[in-house]
């Protein structure tokens, strides 16, 4: 009458479709939660899921229900001291009338917890990029810093003892032994057979000279056989290493941002998204990515992430201060031969009048030759100023490695990011 079925190996994501349906339906809620999370989280902390709450009333499934009021009679268990006819004040805040024996959620909606659930990491990133795919940029499309590394390149006949390839050496030794011993063995076998033949003859007919000749021959052959060495220097094989230039897999990303009074928190949030995108991109391409945050107004300072995004400064703007500091940091900590250097700069385009030419000088002479890539985003709806014009000249000089774009609102970030990197692909 009964039978067992082991279903444990069956698919376990039967609800995946329904889950997706739910997420699709509450896209706008989830998106808001994800945006909050992006602003709250550190750049390096984007690769995990997020708990999202949605107000219960927004996702309720309404049905006809009884509301408060009217007369209701409820049976409750656990009477302690009540007797028939007891009257008591109604407890404030409703509460009466619950407990229909069903354990149903109260229908009054208010006061219930929000509906909370967890987005997976993939879902989270998808919302971060608002459904767009992450850029699939190939690593080879970026001019990487090269680093020389020894690489195996087959087998050589000479080398240092430490690199002896034992298997290959023994194999060739065995081949050599077979090759060298088999003719001797064959001659030996013939000699032995001839001797036996001679000895089987009638003693009268034996050729004594022949026998002694054969015995000498056998002795000689056995000696030769023994002389074949087990391992010869000729057999030795060595692993061959050659030095090959390899792309370095260390990268450092400099985030440079203007924090002068003209940069609002909204500007900074946009900047943060942009830095985030670049970080996620680099992280997929390099084993190790370090972040350096440099903020500047009239003076530049290296800070931690928290301070970078959230402290406010006032005052004017001298961009070259940041570039000078950038140069110093590279000089002292990230020698260009070892690190792939990326710079992302966000600014509203303001700069001290005379400073922009300095910036160009610094860029062209000192920075650009060492950098892998320099991406500049100007977050402003207004007309460009001197800095933009000077940077355009830098771009003309280094079209492969310098890119700049204007961002007006958050929605522009992703297309701009793509634009910045597309150029690299065609290059």
């Amino acid at each position, binding site marked *: 009458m009964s*039978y*067992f079925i082991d279903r444990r190996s069956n698919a376990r994501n039967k609800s995946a479709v329904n*889950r*997706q349906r739910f997420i699709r339906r509450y896209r706008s809620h989830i998106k808001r939660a994800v945006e909050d999370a992006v602003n709250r989280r550190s750049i390096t902390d984007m690769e995990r899921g997020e708990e999202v709450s949605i107000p219960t009333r927004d996702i309720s499934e*309404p049905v006809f229900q009884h509301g408060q009021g009217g007369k209701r009679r409820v049976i409750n268990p656990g009477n302690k001291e009540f007797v028939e006819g007891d009257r008591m004040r109604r407890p404030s805040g409703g509460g009466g009338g*619950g407990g229909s024996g069903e354990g149903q959620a109260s229908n009054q909606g208010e006061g219930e917890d929000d509906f909370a659930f*967890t987005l997976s990491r993939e879902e989270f990133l998808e919302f971060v990029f608002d459904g767009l795919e992450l850029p699939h940029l190939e690593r080879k499309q970026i001019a990487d810093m090269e680093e020389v590394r020894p690489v195996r390149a087959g087998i050589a006949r000479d080398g240092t003892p430490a690199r002896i390839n034992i298997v290959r050496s023994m194999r060739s030794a065995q081949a050599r032994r077979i090759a060298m011993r088999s003719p001797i063995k064959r001659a030996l076998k013939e000699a032995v057979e001839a001797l036996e033949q001679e000895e089987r003859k009638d003693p009268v007919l034996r050729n004594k000279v022949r026998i002694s000749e054969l015995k000498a021959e056998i002795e000689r052959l056995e000696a030769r056989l023994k002389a074949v060495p087990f391992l010869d220097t000729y057999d030795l094989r060595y692993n061959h290493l050659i030095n090959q230039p390899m792309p370095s897999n260390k990268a450092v990303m400099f985030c440079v941002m203007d924090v002068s009074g003209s940069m609002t928190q909204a500007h900074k949030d946009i900047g943060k998204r942009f830095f985030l995108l670049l970080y996620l991109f680099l992280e997929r391409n390099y084993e190790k990515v370090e972040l350096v945050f440099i903020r500047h107004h009239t003076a530049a300072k290296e800070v931690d992430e928290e301070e970078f995004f959230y402290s406010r400064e006032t005052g004017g703007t001298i961009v070259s201060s940041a570039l000078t500091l950038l140069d110093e940091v590279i000089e002292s900590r990230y020698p260009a031969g070892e690190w792939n250097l990326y710079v992302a700069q966000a600014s509203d385009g303001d700069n001290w009048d005379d400073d922009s030419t300095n910036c160009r000088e610094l860029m062209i002479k000192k920075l650009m030759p060492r950098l892998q890539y320099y991406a500049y985003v100007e977050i402003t709806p207004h007309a460009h100023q001197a800095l933009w014009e000077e940077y355009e000249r830098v771009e003309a000089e280094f079209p492969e490695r310098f890119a700049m774009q204007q961002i007006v609102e958050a929605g522009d970030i992703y297309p701009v990011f793509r634009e910045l990197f597309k150029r690299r692909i065609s290059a």
Partner: protein
Amino acid sequence: MSHGLDGGLDDRMSKRIDSRLEDTQPASGSDWTFELLEHFESEIARIAAQYKLDIYPNQIEVITSEQMMDAYASIGMPVGYHHWSFGKQFLSVEQAYRRGQMGLAYELVINSDPCIAYLMEENTLMMQILVMAHACYGHNSFFKGNYLFRTWTDASAIIDYLVFARKYVSECEERHGVDAVEQLLDACHALQNYGVDRYKRPSAISPEEEVQRQQEREAYLQAQVNALWTTIPQAGEEDEVIDEVNDPLGLHRRGRYPPEPQENLLYFIEKNAPLLEPWQRELVRIVRKLAQYFYPQRQTQVMNEGWACFWHYTIMNQLYDEGLIGEGVILEFLQSHTSVVQQPGFDHPHYNGINPYALGFAMFTDIKRICEHPDDEDREWFPDIAGSDWLETVHFAMRNFKDESFIQQFLSPKVIRDLKLFSLVDDDSDEHLVIDAIHDSRGYKRIREALCVQYALSHREPNIQVWAANIRGDRSLTLRHVQDDRRPLARSVYPVMRYLHQLWGFPVHLESMENDEVARRYQWPLPEDANPG
């Protein structure tokens, strides 16, 4: 309730240390194997047969906890159509489970033939035995025996129907888009409790018939609907009352349509909504059919759980008495059993209404007691069952009642006393709450009455029926809500009316009736100046 457990336990514990444990139960710990499951399943089957439990064949599926979450989210249905609300269900189960706020229910059983029950991989051997006794023999025999299930559901066809429904819904999604289907299903779900026939047996659902006739039905239905609505003279824009002077032929005085109020809103919509496409009518039908399938479950919670608990308790104890399970297992069982049938008092922080497991188990246990050891009170209250054969009597109770009538018939003074039930009246015309009955001789009957009413679906859900469809005028639909004890409708009435309007396609009205007078009117679309709530 608990005395039965304790007494029995002490008794047995002192008597023996089970030496046969090692022989009959090679994995005496908590690990299970398929051999052990089969062994115990056959033992349970033997015991169940002694007690005349008649069951559908069991299909017992071993699944992982993730699969259990899936099963949970789809109300246990092995196949279901896709809808975001199941995703919501899944997410909340998942979240609660991950946080450790809830253990997964250790059993899930589906009213189908064969009866599908799930065993979770993580369960201990004791749990697996308990679940088999509870679900595969308790619930299963209830599904097969209870009159509501026999009358209203078709266990042999449900799985195939679900497959049909899923396929049909996904075809509709392909043809008409996911959003269109989702919106329609949202609207239907809002009304699904009003998609059941309460008094007449629905026609059997047969998957072959569904597939074969589905297209014919589309055409036929549409023709019917068209016929109904062609009587309308040019969809009535003029809304003014047409009096006898202007209507000498009495065209507008032919009586209401439908002539009798209709309780099954979804059925009425499926057959009569003027603008629904044939595929939309079919989806309404699917939701309606599934609501009908779940209708008996909503009315037999106390009985169904009580019956299953009663039998798992009886079977587990017999397994122990026969030496098939050892002390460790029976102790683990009792711990689990008592927590399931526990009833916290009304003032307890975990109080969440009356626990149907506790009430049902107490009632079935007490029926057995009344039969076996009746006292004078029982002879007075239950003259026809006191001293009768207990097995016959519990089977009779299981077969022929639903929660409300079961309580009406069998709630004994002893159970009322054990649970210390009392009745609280909350009347908004009285500034005080009144205790109107407690567990004493004057209160038993009143408590029994009140509890019976409390479990009546007709009391739990507002009584709303289709009153009139204006087929000669503006095509509006009017529903009537008959107030019960002056209880008004909750504010959710507005979103539900909106859904109803989506289905009907023309204005919908709802009249709340109190003593044959309209106490309150709702409508959708809202009048310009109205503010809902």
